């Protein structure tokens, strides 16, 4: 259950490496029990942010609160937070069971308690059959599950996952996304998940934080961000988007319209209201849809998705129009991505 209670709070975090600002004043509240994804291109600061929560980096300024307590001076091994590393970082010299036992052994938990807890976690992650194998004898997906089991056995308040599915192939990745989501719901633990894959973020998260250049572009539920991107960066990073400027929707200066390709309507004849003439340059069939690329008279490009029963051909002159309810007016910014 997602509660309103704030579990992790980042306040005015700043961080530089070699005079290069990596985190530029980030504040963020994570609610208890939610699946929050930090999404952004490489170098946006998402992994650094994660490493501030697990304690492997210290912010230059600002504070990291977990359940209201400042963590900045708490070392990683004393934080009630666990991490699933991108490379899994399983201990190669230990078996699956020994890997999972590790943290309990280090904390000197009584032996019978260890057995009980480890068995429960191995069962939950479907790893009982592999308990006595070394990590090198497991498949990528199994290794992934060991990494999660090893963290979950600590019963952390927050589980951090740094691109945990990056090394898996597409099919397995899809399957693991579902497993992760189910596991998170069942455990009720707060997950903070880092990825650069927008599709994955949309599938898996309760909320998404879009990061760019060390600052937050937008926070919200996936659907909301997709339909109402707040900036040109978000619009083009999450899926594909058309941008129209000028007088199409009576815009004031410096504002543009962002429109998803599926909402761009093509007409052979000039429609009422919005009508931008364009010529079709490319048609690609994508199963149920066809993807139509267009070019306006002023040279700007646009993309539309239409069902395959409509007949469009390269070279056709058409008019582009849309329902203003489906478009999003955004402020053109200096840091836009071309």
């Amino acid at each position, binding site marked *: 259950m997602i509660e309103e209670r704030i579990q992790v709070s980042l306040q005015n975090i700043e961080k530089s490496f070699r005079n290069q600002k990596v985190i530029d004043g980030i504040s963020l509240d994570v609610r208890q029990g939610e699946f929050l994804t930090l999404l952004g291109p490489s170098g946006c600061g998402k992994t650094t942010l994660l490493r501030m929560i697990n304690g*492997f980096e210290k912010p230059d300024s600002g504070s990291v609160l977990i359940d209201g307590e400042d963590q900045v001076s708490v070392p990683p091994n004393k934080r009630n937070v666990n991490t699933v590393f991108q490379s899994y970082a399983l201990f190669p010299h230990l078996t699956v069971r020994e890997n999972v036992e590790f943290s309990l052994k280090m904390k000197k938990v009584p032996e019978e308690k260890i057995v009980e807890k480890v068995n429960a976690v191995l069962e939950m992650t479907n790893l009982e059959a592999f308990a006595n194998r070394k990590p090198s004898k497991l498949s990528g997906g199994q290794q992934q599950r060991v990494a999660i089991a*090893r963290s979950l056995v600590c019963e952390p308040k927050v589980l951090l996952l740094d691109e945990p599915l990056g090394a898996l192939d597409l099919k397995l990745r899809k399957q693991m996304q579902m497993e992760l989501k189910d596991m998170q719901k069942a455990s009720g633990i707060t997950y903070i998940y880092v990825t650069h894959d927008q599709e994955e973020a949309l599938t898996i998260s309760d909320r998404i934080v879009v990061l760019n250049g060390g600052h937050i572009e937008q926070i919200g539920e996936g659907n909301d961000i997709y339909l109402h991107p707040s900036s040109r960066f978000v619009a083009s990073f999450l899926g594909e988007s058309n941008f129209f400027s000028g007088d199409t929707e009576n815009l004031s200066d410096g504002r543009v319209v962002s429109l998803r390709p599926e909402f761009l309507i093509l007409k052979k004849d000039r429609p009422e209201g919005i009508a931008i003439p364009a010529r079709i340059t490319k048609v690609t069939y994508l199963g149920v849809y066809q993807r139509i690329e267009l070019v306006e008279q002023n040279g700007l490009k646009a993309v539309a998705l239409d069902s395959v029963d409509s007949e469009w051909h390269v070279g056709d002159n058409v008019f582009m129009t849309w329902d203003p309810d489906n478009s999003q007016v955004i402020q053109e910014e200096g840091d836009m991505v071309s």
Partner: protein
Amino acid sequence: MIKRKHLSTGVLTVIGILILLFMYIPIIVVVLYAFNADSVNYFPMRGASFKWFAKMAADDDLIRSLEHSLVIAGISTGVACVLGVTGGYGMYRFDFPGKSFMNKLVMLPLILPGILTGVALLTFYQAVGIHQGMMAVILGHSTFLIATVLPQVYSRLQQLDGNIIEAAEDLGATSSQTFFHVVLPNIQTAIISSALLSFTLSMDEIPVTYFLNGIFSTLPIQIWGMTRNGITPEVNAISSLIFIISLAAILISNMLSKED
């Protein structure tokens, strides 16, 4: 065309075998003549015996020097392992100014002619008042043996997934728990194989020892002294014995490196 290729492979094989013979005949000769019945190394050998092994075993000076060498090699290897493992781990974990310099510095006593380290330590000992003898030799050997341990440990650590150290801390392990339960088990084969190499090098070392031993003798220094006075098959006997032990060491070390 095919014929020519066979010919060149044949020539190459002959050359390869000749070179291997050049490398091995001296060793074989020493071992073979350890069983010589005669005291002259004459070809062909006139009979075989174990008497030089018996004479070797009865040579008190030789046995004592062997004991000295074993003690020196044991202690120096231990010191070098402690310094090499902590140093290698420290270099792996931390970036600090002068890291690349340290990397080069460590290797110097192994690359530089031993005589330089020998005389440098001699003048230094004299300045600070360390007397020539076993202690002086142990300090000297430890110094150049670091060069065999530290780089091996460092490079093994670099081959590890660096995240396992962070993972250990993330799972609640303290620095020392991380070191003993995660780092050490993953580099132990590197430590054992470099320790074996260190031990062998120390048992064989002359140039540094020569300047530091004073009146007290190590095995190679003792053998050197015996060979300078003339040829005695006792030397063949002791050399053969050491050769067999070294061979065992290299096989063990090779098996360990294969394991990874």
